[in-house]
């Protein structure tokens, strides 16, 4: 059976929430109505990573990339593209291009990307195991069960040089090897799908778009270290990922790829899902395990490491979703293939969630060693609204900022740490000239302060004190010794906190003070916020030379702080002004000024 066209409809969370299901249904109905349903297969896929422009519909073989599609567009897509073979120009991503087709390869967003983890996302139907199998799925498991020894598997991961993608970058083979070597009547495999970094969603997208890759990898690990139980710890706010996992697990069980005597090999392995309530600290591995055991999610000191003594005191291999998604392809293509991708320090690719003041936000997978400039300018299309680039934040609340001078640094685990940031799980937030760096530091710090479990004093007390100091600075009450005080507290937290949440919490402050000391000084000494963000430090006024007295601002001001006759210059009463900024946006003559 040959189809003439394939219509791929994104079913990722972002697109789904903007009606992807309705679009899918409408397309199926239109194909029926226009008599082409035998020629066309409509497939729902995982996230294309281009959520900013969603809902996405891609039509093959022309490789036409349609963006912001609405259910009402289905009729035209079918009648024009499918029946008449004419692309629907107005919906194409690249509308004004002079070339014949807007092909996916032509979109810069995809050009520098290299997809290993996301290889199936946006291509296969994640709810159909046959499509995963068609893409060599469960072939790695076959190899592991019937052709390789346990040591071969570990050795292949060692050659690959795969390091954990959950943040710390620990070599995966070592972890597996520790667990394998421990004698125990029971062992566990855990998938960390807690994904708590603000702005991060790569794990969610992987699970939604290619759930079987994680199931296959966990089964491989089970066989390698001698475990028969797997647990996926996933936050309850990810309903679509949970649903796709449940469907995938059922299908794998039906096929005998999970459960007793897998493929007749004699090996038993099954997986269950545990829902987390979404506390950031529960992503930390020891807290996560405590939470699975039914205790409060609080970290415990390591060693012993979970690999040796983990869930219910049994050896437990815990890896991140993205780490898991890399495993099957490494086994299939060999560690040496993987080792060649990336840098000497970090091999393979990394998925980033690119957000903030960027033209094309979305999921990006690039080889390790790609520079920030390539990610932000070539893939991300540069800063939105032609503003000036200020900094990029990586590593979420544990990371720091990277400035213009370092945009050409090839990114890998080591280089980011050297710059005072870290890889983290892959959040990447771009800031422009309108972002206040002190405000950014405050945002991340307050996030970790809120999420601290409170078990140890350095994190609990230190975090709160840092937050108080930042608050003081943004209010205009900061003093010069505050900078030293923050460094002192920060360093104490780094040394004395029990888990990495507290140890890394000061990073956003320390790195912003290092690269943007001037901006801190402006707040402290001049009592000014150069970006115009910190309300206590700015005043709104009207430039009498520019104001033509159109009264637009006065009518919009929510607190009637603006007075003036028609056609005469207006005035803001600073004692009434709540600094909402509405007048600034309203004035067409640039008469409203912020200082």
């Amino acid at each position: 059976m040959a189809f003439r066209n394939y219509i791929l409809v994104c079913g990722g969370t972002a697109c789904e929430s903007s009606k992807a299901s309705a679009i899918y249904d409408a397309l199926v109905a239109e194909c029926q109505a226009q008599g082409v349903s035998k020629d066309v297969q409509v497939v729902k896929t995982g996230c294309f990573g281009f959520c900013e422009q969603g809902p996405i519909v891609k039509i093959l073989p022309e490789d036409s990339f349609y963006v912001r599609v609405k259910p009402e567009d289905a009729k035209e897509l079918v009648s024009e593209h499918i029946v008449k073979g004419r692309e629907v120009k107005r919906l194409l991503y690249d509308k004004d291009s002079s070339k014949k087709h807007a092909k996916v390869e032509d979109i810069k967003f995809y050009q520098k990307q290299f997809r290993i983890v996301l290889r199936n996302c946006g291509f296969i139907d994640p709810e159909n195991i046959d499509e995963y199998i068609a893409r060599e799925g469960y072939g790695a498991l076959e190899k592991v069960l019937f052709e390789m020894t346990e040591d071969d598997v570990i050795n292949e991961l060692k050659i690959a040089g795969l390091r954990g993608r959950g943040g710390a970058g620990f070599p995966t083979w070592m972890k597996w090897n520790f667990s394998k070597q421990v004698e125990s009547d029971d062992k566990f495999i855990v998938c960390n799908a807690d994904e708590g970094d603000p702005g991060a969603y790569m794990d969610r997208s992987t699970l939604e778009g290619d759930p079987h890759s994680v199931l296959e990898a966990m089964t491989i690990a089970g066989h390698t270290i001698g475990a028969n139980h797997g647990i996926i710890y996933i936050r309850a706010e990810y309903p679509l990922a949970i649903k796709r996992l449940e469907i995938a697990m059922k299908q794998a069980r039906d096929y005998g790829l999970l459960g007793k005597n897998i493929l007749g090999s004699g090996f038993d392995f099954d997986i269950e899902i545990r829902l987390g309530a979404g506390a950031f600290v529960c992503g930390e591995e020891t807290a996560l395990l405590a939470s699975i055991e039914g205790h409060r999610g609080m970290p415990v000191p390591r060693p012993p490491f979970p690999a040796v003594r983990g869930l219910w005191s049994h050896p437990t291999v815990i890896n991140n979703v993205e780490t898991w998604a890399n495993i099957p392809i490494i086994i299939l293509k060999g560690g040496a293939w993987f080792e060649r991708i990336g840098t000497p320090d970090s091999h393979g690719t990394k998925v980033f969630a690119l957000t903030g003041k960027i033209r094309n936000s979305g999921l990006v997978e690039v080889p390790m060693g790609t520079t920030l400039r390539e990610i932000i300018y070539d893939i991300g299309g540069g800063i939105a609204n032609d503003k000036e680039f200020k900094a990029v934040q990586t590593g979420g609340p544990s990371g720091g900022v990277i400035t213009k001078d370092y945009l050409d640094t090839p990114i890998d685990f080591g280089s980011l740490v050297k710059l005072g940031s870290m890889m983290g799980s892959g959040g990447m937030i771009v800031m422009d000239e309108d972002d206040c760096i002190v405000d950014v530091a405050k945002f991340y710090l307050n996030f970790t302060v809120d999420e601290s479990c409170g078990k140890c004093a350095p994190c609990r007390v230190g975090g709160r004190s840092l937050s108080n100091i930042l608050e003081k600075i943004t209010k205009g009450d900061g003093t010069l010794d505050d900078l030293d005080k923050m460094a002192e507290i920060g360093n104490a937290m780094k040394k004395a906190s029990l888990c990495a949440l507290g140890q890394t919490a000061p990073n956003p402050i320390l790195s912003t003070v290092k690269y943007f000391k001037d901006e801190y000084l402006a707040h402290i000494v001049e009592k000014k916020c150069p970006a115009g963000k910190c309300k206590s430090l700015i005043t709104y006024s009207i430039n009498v030379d520019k104001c033509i007295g159109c009264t637009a601002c006065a009518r919009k001001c929510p607190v009637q702080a603006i007075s003036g006759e028609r056609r005469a210059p207006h005035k803001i009463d600073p004692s009434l002004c709540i600094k909402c900024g509405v007048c600034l946006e309203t004035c067409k003559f640039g008469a409203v000024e912020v200082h």
Partner: protein
Amino acid sequence: MAKMTLEELRKLRDKKKVEIKKRDVSDRDTHIIVGMGTCGIAAGGKVVLDTFLRELDSRHLDNVIVTQTGCMGLCYVEPTVEVISPGMPPVIYGKVDASVVKRIVDEHIVGKQMVSDHVFDRPSADIIKDGGK
């Protein structure tokens, strides 16, 4: 589907692989474009398109993309088909029917030989623009 043996899994994969490959356009090197303007459709373009898909499928030629386009400006020899394949100049064939389709597949795509009697040159750009009228 009941639990599978290793053999059954491999068989299923081989079967599904062929199906899903048809969707993957990333490393295809040969492109067949069928003219499906009003004139092309009237002259039998749909039959040509379907015959191509069937012929390629039965020969397991999975390096070929078949797409449609509007009028190529050669209405007097419709249905027309453009074939772009490695090692061959781009060629437009006219007066294509089911038997010519088979020849294009065998002679041009597999055999790397042009199909004589059916090659029509592309008219100059200004003719294309006004639709060959």
